[in-house]
């Protein structure tokens, strides 16, 4: 006599078996699996005052902050409505400099210049001057900062370096905890040979960095219009070539809490553009 399994029990057992597959499959999938880079979900062009977006960051409540590339001026963008909202600045007139990245850690907003000067400010009302302070990260000698993001897992800021001598054979990400008492964390070195192994030009120089909700790091390059995904050991997990027409100069990168990827492009004097790539549904292909 063959033992029979009640249909409800069978369905429950099937779900139980498939759930880890779906979840782990999503966790184990690479950036290329989680997003369809052939199908942009949405695109919105920025108004003139945001011609040159050098960095993006997503706030805990889901808004996007973008910054001016020559002034410490932060613009709020509502990705749902695709509208540019308020703006606030560090200093009045805003501090000037070659700003390259923005990060949001709770209520703390950070801007960084290419020579490693960090400006920390707080969000304030529209067209107001925010309180701020400046600090020198000391990166100037060895790292030309091109991207900034906050890594909640390590409670640290990540600095993507364009020039990384003496490690010229690697792309380097420097890590500085929000608590300076912990000292600088070991940098993440990504060998160029590993980047090339994923079909991306070895000339890859980062222009932006963002932490994926799965915990991996994603770096964009404006010089070779590509993305790479790496783990904290510097292993390259995926390399994605972006369409040059769609992404002429990716300079900003951020992930929403739902996994949506935002890429900001400068367009040689034309209006800047933000493209979004929604995360594929769990188990989707």
């Amino acid at each position, binding site marked *: 006599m063959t033992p029979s399994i009640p249909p409800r029990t069978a369905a429950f057992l099937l779900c139980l078996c498939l759930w880890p597959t779906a979840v782990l499959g999503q966790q184990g999938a690479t950036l290329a699996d989680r997003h369809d880079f052939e199908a942009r979900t949405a695109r919105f062009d920025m108004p003139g005052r945001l011609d040159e977006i050098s960095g993006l960051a997503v706030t805990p409540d889901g808004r996007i902050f973008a910054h001016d590339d020559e002034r410490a001026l932060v613009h709020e963008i509502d990705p749902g409505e695709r509208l540019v909202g308020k703006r606030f600045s560090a200093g009045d007139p805003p501090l000037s400099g070659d700003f390259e990245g923005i990060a949001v850690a709770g209520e703390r907003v950070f801007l960084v210049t290419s020579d490693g000067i960090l400006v920390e*400010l707080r969000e304030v009302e529209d067209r107001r001057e925010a309180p701020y*302070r*400046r600090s020198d990260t000391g990166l100037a000698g060895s790292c030309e900062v091109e991207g900034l993001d906050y890594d909640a897992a390590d409670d640290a800021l990540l600095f993507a370096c364009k020039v990384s001598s003496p490690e010229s054979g690697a792309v380097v990400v420097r890590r500085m905890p929000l608590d300076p008492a912990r000292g600088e964390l070991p940098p993440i070195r990504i060998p160029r040979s590993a980047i090339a192994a994923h079909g991306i030009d070895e000339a890859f120089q980062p222009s932006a960095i963002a932490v994926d909700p799965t915990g991996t790091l994603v770096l964009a390059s404006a010089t070779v219009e590509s993305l790479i995904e790496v783990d904290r050991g510097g292993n390259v997990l995926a390399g994605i070539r972006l369409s040059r027409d769609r992404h002429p100069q990716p300079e900003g990168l951020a992930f929403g809490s739902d996994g949506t990827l935002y890429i900001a492009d400068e367009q040689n004097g034309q209006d800047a553009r933000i493209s979004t790539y929604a995360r594929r549904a769990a188990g989707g292909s």
Partner: protein
Amino acid sequence: MTPRQAIAGKGGGVVRIAVYYVVLATLAVALVQYVPVVREAMTAGELTGIGGPGANDLFGPGTAPAIGSEITASPWHNALVATVSMLGALAIMIPVTWVYMVTRRNRGYEESVVHTLLVLPVAVTGIVMIVKGSVALAFSLAGIVAAVRFRTTLDDTKDAVYVFLAIGVGLACGVQAVGVALALSVVFNLVILALWTTRFGNIYAGSSGGALGLGEVLAGPESSVGALAVGDPAILDAAAPADVSEIAERAARIERHVSEERLKKKSKRANVLLLVHAARAEAAQAHVEQQLQELAARWKLAEVTPTEGGFLLMYLARLDGPAVQGAVMDRLRNGVGAVIEAAELRSLKGINPRA
């Protein structure tokens, strides 16, 4: 070594200026890398470390420490950045003054203009750093400048351009863009040296392109109006040799005298050719020589040539400075109509001995 000596000789001078710029730029790059204050002066950064309303409360004791070394806003820090910016302005203007002095060497220049070119950008840098970011202070400054008016007359319009440059360098350094000031200075000097070397726009510069030949001096400018002259320009034009062979013959005759001059010490060498047109040679000669005797360091009658309706007297003379040259021509003017018909002074400075 004085700047004049340093610049002496076009080729060597240009190389020295280029070396100065390279050293200055290298020094700036090195200091920017390792000295934060210099970096601040070069990268248009703001002076204050903590700013904005409520900043001191928000980032005061008890709050999360800054990442990296906090840039503090002490008055000494501001003073240091201002000092670096002002010294940068001074260093950038030094080669400009060298170029000014060498290009104005023949025509002369005032010491006060040279000093102004060095001091003005330093003052402008300081003022801009005070005014920066404050509309109220900017209006106050405008009011002060309007009240304390400067009425300085410049000899040459090009001097005004140098003053503009000095202001531009001061403004750039004042907004902590010392690199821009350096570029401004380099490009300006390149243009000035190019214009000076090629004698761009000079009425004598047409054929030889280099130093003047004696024939060119004798032929004179296309119009006598451009030369230091007294009397009727029509007489001068009519008396100027139009025929190339006549110019060549006259140049050959005068060459002997000029060659003798070259053997003399530079300080005693004739620096002008005085051409006097007169109906009666003896009377004119007496009048001219009386003036030269009183005013010239030395002089010599080179030639008396019969011309249509009179004579042309040619003198080689050393007249030190524009003031003396002007005085001689003034005195000759008094003789116009009585003993001489017209007179003309042509510079022998920069004449090419081989031409």
